[in-house]
């Protein structure tokens, strides 16, 4: 499974939606994922890829990790996975 498909699967599960309902343009807010849901999604992503996501819930916009859309999250994860390799 590609990084993109896996991340979408995790986000969809968190939002209790079908993967087909999660588009690249969707924001977490669109999907109904709140701050706790975001932290839980990041945990699931870290577990799935064995990476560490630089995200601080106190200052989400200041983090090095862009969570403004599904596309930006996937791009960030792909970069982290590549760095890991």
């Amino acid at each position, binding site marked *: 499974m590609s990084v993109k498909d896996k991340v979408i699967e995790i986000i969809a599960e968190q939002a*209790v939606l079908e993967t087909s309902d999660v588009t690249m343009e969707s924001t977490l807010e669109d999907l109904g994922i709140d701050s*706790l*849901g975001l*932290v*839980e999604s*990041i*945990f699931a992503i*870290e*577990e799935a890829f064995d990476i*560490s996501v630089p995200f601080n819930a106190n200052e989400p916009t200041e983090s090095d990790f862009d969570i403004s859309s599904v596309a930006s999250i996937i791009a960030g994860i792909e970069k982290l996975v590549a760095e890991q390799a």
Partner: protein
Amino acid sequence: MNRVVITGAGTINALGHTVAETWAAMKEGKCGIGPLEMKDVDRLTIKIGGQVQGFDACTTFNRQQLALYDRFTQFALIAAREAVAQSGLEFSGEMAAKSGVVLGTSGGGMQTLDENYRNVYEEGKNRVHPFVVPKLMNNAAASHISMEFNLKGPSFTVATACASSNHAMSQAFQMVRSGMAPVMVTGGSESMLCFGGVKAWEGLRVMSKDGCRPFSANRNGMVQGEGAGVFVFEEYEHAKARGAEILAEVSGFAMSSDASDIVMPSKQGAARAISGALRDAKLNPSDVGYINAHGTGTAANDKTECAAVADVFGRHADSLMISSTKSMHGHLIGGTGAVELLACIMALKEGVIAPTIGYEEPDPECALDVVPNEAREAKVDAVLSNAFAFGGLNAVLALRAI
């Protein structure tokens, strides 16, 4: 001062998943204690307990809820749902703003602690689930009940080991009696039956390997249980005005501290709590027909408790009934007083005294009518529920029929 009545009761414990099932089991003298089922049970010396059986959290709670609810919170919510449904109350407006929830627990989210310590220490993982803290905190159950039922008044958790529930219900009682709150949801919950929880208790060498036999000469220790009991305490006129079914009246309480030893019980401390509860409830000793004993099945507790009862009640100690239902559901630690209050309500409302099962040999140091092995029909008008905790903290509640 307002009168305080109980208009709802709920439970889940080793004897049943509802109050009706629990009462039926108590009347039959059923034993809910059996072989423990948990990871690494073969590494335990104590392999028995009063576990809740046939309960699948996944059919009761959704995925998001399961991520946030430790087993002790699950138990508390199940019991609260039954109690609030029975009361028929819905909380809104000023009533919601003033009504709250006070729960007892000793270990809080012990299952969550155990599982995550395993993850980081045993399995060497460097990452834990983000909800570990909100899941394990001792007030999690009280907070989730508050959220589910819109209870916005005084809400908190009391931790006094084995007396937690009685202390919690005493607080709730005072709030309704004083007029501070029209309704309080109260009781306790515990789920310590995990590897670390049982292992810790093993260390103290007060646990029985084969069964809980309170007051019996051949008793050899306590057996842990798990579960919750939750009640709706309501101001009497409020309950009467809306035609609510009243299960019993809470008529008094007392609390005391032994100020002597961290684990050994004290006759004086227990006696002061018992006599204090009688005074507070304006009961004469001869009014009391039944006492739900703390009755842990340890050598020290049972003889100390019987001596305290004999001191307070004098000759009447020989005519009242005193039983320990821990022989059936085990010791629910911080939740135990709440589940045991059900036996008190059953005595008042159904006229049936729950037995002390597993009773095999009389002990001259426990020479009271402990209702051995079989439930008994009897009309009683006033009862007490004892709880004496490690740390020497005692809390006794007095209930009356209404």
